[in-house]
């Protein structure tokens, strides 16, 4: 293990000498896709609980498709499937975008995490106590103000535990990015394996790094829950 680590640790962590690789790329993909996914998921979550069928049904169809298929297949579809279409290759802008594996990976991950996060946020909005909404209306709040000051702050807090699961799920999900030739942590492990034939060490080291990041994220979310969810903790009996 030490031999392999001393030779490849730099590539595993941040660079192979030419470009960003390994853990750095994995974390960068995670941050990018989660931010894009989350920003899109808040309005979509609100649309998902809308009483208007014309608004909620398309969102429902979107989350159904993206939660019902493997992310690996989604990546293959976006990276090889879409790019095999002539329309995509001949439109300059699309060609420029889809030619780069990294873009395809981010697009796939963002679409995927957005689908899951939309359902999480929609569930949390539905769990809003009716009294809070009534109180807001009684104070004369508009729909927008009601969402901004009452529903969303409560719902996002309630969604925290589910969101932490989703973040860890995405960290693990980014390991399929090698299929789009992105030099992420697992791609480096595969290369190291191909060079040295020390499979157990090569993949084991990558696994250890993933494990460390997972623990770190779990710890961060526990801190966040202590800060924003302490009012929901079960009361201690006296």
């Amino acid at each position, binding site marked *: 293990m030490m031999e392999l680590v001393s030779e490849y640790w730099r590539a595993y962590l941040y660079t192979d000498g030419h470009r960003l690789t390994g853990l750095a790329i994995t974390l960068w993909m995670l941050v990018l896709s989660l931010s894009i996914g989350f920003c899109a998921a808040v309005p979509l979550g609100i649309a998902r609980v809308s009483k208007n069928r014309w608004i909620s049904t398309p969102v429902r169809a979107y989350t159904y498709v993206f939660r019902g298929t493997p992310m*690996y297949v989604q990546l293959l579809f976006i990276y090889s*499937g*879409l*790019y*095999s279409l002539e329309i995509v290759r001949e439109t300059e802008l699309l060609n420029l975008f889809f030619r780069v594996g990294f873009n395809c990976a981010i697009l796939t991950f963002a679409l995927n995490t957005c689908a899951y996060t939309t359902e999480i946020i929609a569930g949390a909005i539905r769990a809003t106590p009716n009294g809070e909404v009534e109180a807001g209306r009684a104070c004369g709040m508009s729909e927008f103000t009601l969402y901004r000051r009452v529903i969303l702050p409560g719902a996002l807090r309630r969604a925290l535990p589910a969101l932490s699961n989703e973040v860890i799920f995405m960290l693990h*999900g980014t390991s399929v990015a090698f299929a789009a030739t992105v030099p992420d942590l697992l791609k480096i*492990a595969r290369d190291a*394996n191909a060079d040295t034939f020390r*499979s157990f060490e090569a993949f084991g080291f990558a*696994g250890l790094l993933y494990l460390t990041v997972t623990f770190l994220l779990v710890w961060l979310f526990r801190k966040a829950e202590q800060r924003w969810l302490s009012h929901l903790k079960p009361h201690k009996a006296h």
Partner: protein
Amino acid sequence: MLLYGYGPQILEGVKVTLALSLSALALSFLIGLLGAAAKLSPNRLLSGVATAYTTLIRGVPDLVSMLVLFYGFQMLLNDFTEAQGWEQIMIDPFAAGVMTLGFIYGAYFSETFRGAFLAVPKGPIEAGFAFGMTRWQVFRRILFPQMMRYALPGIGNNWQVLMKSTALVSIIGLNDLVRIADQAGKATYQVFFFTALTGLIYLGITTVSIIVLQRLERRYATGARMAEL
């Protein structure tokens, strides 16, 4: 021609994917029951090992565990056969897929079952013992049926994640739906069509699973009254 002549192969791939997911489900279900029993056991060593297993497996991406287990085990086997002077034994990708997926999702099932066992009220169990039932009878007639009601939503989630992660087994060389469709797409230059088809087939399996799970939940909820809101 239908599916550019790849109809039979795709069907074969669907069968492999389904067989793999169902076998892995059965194995992980078993491991999950054992894992939950170990986690709840008063024996410190047993519960410690089970906790380490579930924490490690759930902290590492399933693809990485799959590669570690598949290649790692193959190398151990190679070392062993070499030391014995035997011929090299190659692990069959299907068996490897079932074992690694079963081992990985066994960890998730352990957590699901642990929570569900804890949710079963103590009264009926004590009543069972008071009637002179053996431990096995109490488990089979009282604990298991009640536990299943609490575990079903979790089992459903785990099943769907497991079923989708079978797509990754194509990476270790199994001729499943994803791999066959990928090859068909490259051979016919219809990559778009075949990757979309793969997605649709997975979506179909998900849809059927959701319907089956709803039926099961209704069955195991017999006699349970829902709070009327």
